[in-house]
């Protein structure tokens, strides 16, 4: 809905393509189902065929030739370099910092990229009870970097989250170190409007790129805090025909 008039792609497609581009060839990538899995598998079909996909179900080096439908889809075990138990995936692979990139979604995210996927409203008297933590707190703590994919609106981008399920930068610089979190934390929040990155000094999420057709003011309106714009605010490169074709072919496999 935010794609520019006349564009042959949607805002969700732009978001997925931007996320795929963020994955370096050869990286070990901890993948959740949904947009992260789509983005990671798109990267495998475009610039990063050797991306090493890890699913929390225990599949190491999965190479699905279609989009898996769950994090425990049989195609993951069938195509993996090896399958390990769930305790092993968390203890031997995630916790020691072997994973380059973790992908997270969010029901709420604040200016320091702290994420809520647990509850809207008070914990004891929830307005909306969400699924909860799953693998997210330790993905956020231990991956070398974290990428968040989430659609941008004021309900989601809130001044403060109702519950910290996964720590981004806590209350600002030094908090990750103080908590002993050994991964680098969020490096990028990719939305349907643009890309936010933590300011190197303040760690506050700052708009660094807007997607084609998006006015930066739109992004500010859809953010629950006073969103800062990077001085060198960039314009995301529109999806290339090759990227779009690969993405659509990938989504076809889900049928």
């Amino acid at each position: 809905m935010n794609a520019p008039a006349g564009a042959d792609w949607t805002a969700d497609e732009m978001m997925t393509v931007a996320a795929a581009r963020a994955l370096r060839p050869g990286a070990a990538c901890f993948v959740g189902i949904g947009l992260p899995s789509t983005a990671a598998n798109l990267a495998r079909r475009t610039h990063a065929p050797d991306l090493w996909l890890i699913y929390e179900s225990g599949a190491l080096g999965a190479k699905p030739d279609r989009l898996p439908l769950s994090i425990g889809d049989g195609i993951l075990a069938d195509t993996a370099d090896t399958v390990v138990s769930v305790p092993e995936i968390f203890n031997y692979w995630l916790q020691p910092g072997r994973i380059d990139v973790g992908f997270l979604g969010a029901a709420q995210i604040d200016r320091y990229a702290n994420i809520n996927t647990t509850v809207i409203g008070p914990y004891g008297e929830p307005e909306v009870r969400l699924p909860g933590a799953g693998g997210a707190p330790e993905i956020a703590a231990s991956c070398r970097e974290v990428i968040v994919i989430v659609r941008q609106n004021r309900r989601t981008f809130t001044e403060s989250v109702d519950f910290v399920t996964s720590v981004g930068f806590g209350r600002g610089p030094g908090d990750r170190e103080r908590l002993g979190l050994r991964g680098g934390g969020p490096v990028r929040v990719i939305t349907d409007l643009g890309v936010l990155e933590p300011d190197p000094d303040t760690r506050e999420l700052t708009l660094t790129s807007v997607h084609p057709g998006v006015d930066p003011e739109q992004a500010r309106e859809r953010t629950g805090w006073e969103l800062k714009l990077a001085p060198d605010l960039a314009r995301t490169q529109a999806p290339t025909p090759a990227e779009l074709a690969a993405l659509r072919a990938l989504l076809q496999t889900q049928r």
Partner: protein
Amino acid sequence: MATILPLDEAVRRLVHDGDTVALEGFTHLIPMAAGHELIRQRLRGLTLVRMTPDLVYDQMIGAGLADRLVFSWGGNPGVGSLHRFRDAVQNGWPGPLAIEEHSHAGMANRYVAGASGVPFAVLRGYRGTDLVGQTATIKPITCPFTGEELTAVPALNPDVAIVHAQRADRAGNVQLWGILGVQKEAVLAARRSLATVEEIVDELAPVPGAVLLPARVVTAVAEVPGGASPSYAQGYYDRDNDAYQAWDAIGRDRAAFTDWLRREVHGRAGVSGGAA
């Protein structure tokens, strides 16, 4: 040594009101048919433990079996929310449901500690999250060598663990392969265990990647073909994704759910396979 029993008899012998019960299976090999049998036997006051409460726990919670849920992620994978779980937590329907909430890493380590006969496990986890303030079973622990502060979680030792697997032999050795999940640890951590299997065979041919649960850690085995449906059993049948989609509408509405329960669970006593 495992005893081979019909499913209803196995559940009758192993599971009692008030027990702590863990049904494990990580997307793959979810013991759906066993969950339905628990519902049919109208067990009450259970503490249900599971990393990923999904359809089968939504159904058991909606049917009023549970007082308490110990878990790390409660959703309908790839579809959305669990409405019976939400209704219980948000509105106390059909009764109040206390929750004890962890992360996957914490739950996995709790089972490992339980399987290992130690009272707690140590991990890098939870620090800085609001789970620490809500869940009493998360505590700091200091490394006696480095002084570093980490997190301790207590062992899980369910009264009963229930898993589904591909095969067992007549002695009750159980073999499973594909996505392995946390089933080995759940069975080893539990006081009693039930494995439902796709088939009982004379000889368990070795399979690459297969885990074997020796008969002496399995209390009972029940042959329940299709017992993981609508989840899947690698090498036997695929996941029924439509059933997961369809569950959303059923689970969303108390009346639709109650009707489903009457028709598809209570109405199917003696039908061996899972149904949703």
